[in-house]
């Protein structure tokens, strides 16, 4: 039997996730410590912005995560709709809160970076508006998934919503190219970067840290989701008994 179909049963995945999650949190902590060290103590002061540019070490990785996690969530949603599997839907539900958190952090840190540099906490330009729409898409996903008596109906409706909302991601990403917006264009892309090496390293380390953290939270949360959904089964009952 191929490995993934063995894992596709909630009962087996529960144990698997429980064993893996701590490693991802540990990785996140190490990478985060390294990233913060580079970002706060090693990277030089910016010529134009002074110290406040250091928000970038949270803001950009959080923004990347907000989009990436939505994409992964939508993929799990698509898988759950195509193959009618429960576990894929449970993983989508488990990713949503972390995705919403990073979207909020991206908007908040962007706001507190914008005030000293642009002079305003908020502007209705294309990128900020579509990132705000992303936050509401996450909220909508969570609300819709939990709005039905039958959790499977919630799974399917939320998965479809996630797929419909995918169109927002290219809008967020390309908005600074398509429109003359206040938000600056990307300084990091596949061709290279104009950033100072330590700044780039700090940003990448923080991005990987957030990524590992997200996997850790998703694996931890899916265990709780599995307990909730499979609470009538023998093995979950056994779990609860052992803790008493």
């Amino acid at each position: 039997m191929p490995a993934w179909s063995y894992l596709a049963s909630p009962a087996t995945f529960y144990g698997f996730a429980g064993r893996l999650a701590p490693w991802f949190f540990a990785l996140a902590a190490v990478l985060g410590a390294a990233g913060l060290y580079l970002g706060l103590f090693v990277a030089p002061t910016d010529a134009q912005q002074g110290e406040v540019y250091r928000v970038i070490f949270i803001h950009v990785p959080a923004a990347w995560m907000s989009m990436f996690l939505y994409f992964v969530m939508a993929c799990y949603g698509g898988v759950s709709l195509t193959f009618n599997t429960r576990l894929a839907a449970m993983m989508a539900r488990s990713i949503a809160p972390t995705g919403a958190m990073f979207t909020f952090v991206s908007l908040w840190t962007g706001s507190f970076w914008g005030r000293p540099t642009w002079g305003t906490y908020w502007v209705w330009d294309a990128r900020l508006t579509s990132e705000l729409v992303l936050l509401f898409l996450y909220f909508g996903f969570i609300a819709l998934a939990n709005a039905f008596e039958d959790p499977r109906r919630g799974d399917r409706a939320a998965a479809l919503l996630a797929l419909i909302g995918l169109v927002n991601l290219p809008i967020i990403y390309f908005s600074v190219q398509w429109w003359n917006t206040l938000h600056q264009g990307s300084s990091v892309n596949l061709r290279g970067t104009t950033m100072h090496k330590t700044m780039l390293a700090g940003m990448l380390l923080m991005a990987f840290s957030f990524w590992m953290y997200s996997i850790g939270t998703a694996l931890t949360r899916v265990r709780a989701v599995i307990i909730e959904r499979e609470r009538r089964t023998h093995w979950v009952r056994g779990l609860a008994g052992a803790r008493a």
Partner: protein
Amino acid sequence: MSHEFYLWMSYGATAIAVAAEVVLLRVRRAQALARVEEEKDLEAQD
């Protein structure tokens, strides 16, 4: 507002958000297990 204020507000809010998420994870797990217990007790009474 000094630049330190904006840095603290940014890093601080992120730290709070991450801490809150981790705490809520534990709360959710405890609630899920409590619900299982509750249903077991209800069925035992039948």
